[in-house]
């Protein structure tokens, strides 16, 4: 049964721009996939322009949810974050961190971290429904706080900064 693999590839076209471009240009990208001819043909004849719009709307929705929730989370969690970093002073040198995570993942991991550590201060929202959140690392958490303060997401300067 190849339908599950078809669905995985279909969802990938919604979220992976490079894969979508490869698929649109050259169907050989599916050569090694266990798909029926019907499924293969369907993936290569998707309305790619419209899929591109869908991809953009997904990003916009995620970003909107992220902004909406991050403000609330950050405000509520500032004290918690500060105490977290105070307890980990070796996490930064001259304001720079190693193990950089590209924006905006820094903030996403912070949200996840707050959600897992401090359920009571987080809004009961659908973060996991809208965000791909990797596991938190201290470096990315620190970058999140720094970024948030510099961009006005955290209104009050955390004590550590």
């Amino acid at each position, binding site marked *: *049964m190849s*339908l*599950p693999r*078809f*669905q*995985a590839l*279909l*969802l*990938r076209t*919604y*979220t992976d721009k490079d894969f979508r471009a490869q698929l649109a240009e050259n169907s050989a990208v599916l050569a090694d996939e266990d798909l029926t001819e*019907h499924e293969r*043909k*369907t993936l290569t*004849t*998707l*309305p790619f322009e*419209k*899929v591109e*719009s*869908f991809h953009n*709307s*997904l990003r916009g*929705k*995620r970003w*909107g949810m992220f902004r*909406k929730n991050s403000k609330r989370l950050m405000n509520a969690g500032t004290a918690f974050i500060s105490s977290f970093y105070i307890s980990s002073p070796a996490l930064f040198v001259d304001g720079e961190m190693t193990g950089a995570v590209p924006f905006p993942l820094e903030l996403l991991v912070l949200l996840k971290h707050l959600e897992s550590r401090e*359920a*009571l201060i987080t*809004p*009961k*929202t*659908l973060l*996991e*429904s*809208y*965000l*791909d959140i990797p596991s938190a690392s201290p470096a990315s958490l620190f970058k999140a706080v720094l970024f948030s303060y510099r961009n006005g997401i955290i209104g009050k300067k955390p004590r550590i900064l």
Partner: protein
Amino acid sequence: MKKNLDSIPFFGAGIGLRTELERQLREHAEDVLVLEVITERFFEKSAREGTLASFAKDFRIIPHGVKLSIGSALPLDYEHLEKVKAVCEFLDAPYYSEHFALTRHGDEFDTGHLSPIWFTQENLEVVIAHVKEIQDYLERPLVLENITSSFEIPNADYEEPEFISAVCQETGCGLLLDLTNVFINAYNRKTDPYDFLQRIPLDRVIHMHLAGGKLHHGVMEDTHSEPLSGINEEVWPLLEWTAPRATRLSTLIIERDSNFSGSFEDMLLTDLRRAQKIIEDSKKG
């Protein structure tokens, strides 16, 4: 399945509970007959016993899920379903609503958004099997919502209305008819919304949604951010036409997910009263 579509009472018109609206909903409890909550928000016991319990004292509450991914060909996620069941039981929900959609593929991909099902025979069999399994597990009817989509997956065996009808026919499930989604799809695809409505089993409609979208570069977007006026005025004749035909209609919910800056009256109450009058009149007629 213990409960069935015929045992569902009429609740009337209400509003989707969102954090930003909580204070105003408490202040206007006498105007709002029913609330709809996003089920996943109350997966934690503490959330159920806090916010949900406090609203349940004053409102009838219907749970609505967004993350079941009923179109996925993978086995159902029973960890997720167990939490859904806990919310349903907490609210003594007469039915559970979700979407005709694909949102994730196990742990490999999660779009976080509703995407269209490929309307093939194989997918139809998958959805039918899932609906039956979910209804048995939850011990209540499933009520499934039509979604908006800017495109359709090609090489399908069915058109959307026929796919929806077949699922209803084979499983006995109900429909959550989102009239705004019908309007938006028709607007963007340049089709007739009444053609869609005439091809689905309206006697299975248990629940309805209305929400205001926005026109962006000629494309109607399902933003849930506007009152039902201007271009969104189009949903009212659809409701007037549908309500008398939706003989099992229990609940109509107006959804608002962003742009909370206006007064509660302008954002929601005016539309709520108008919707309530239309569905009440249809019940009398």
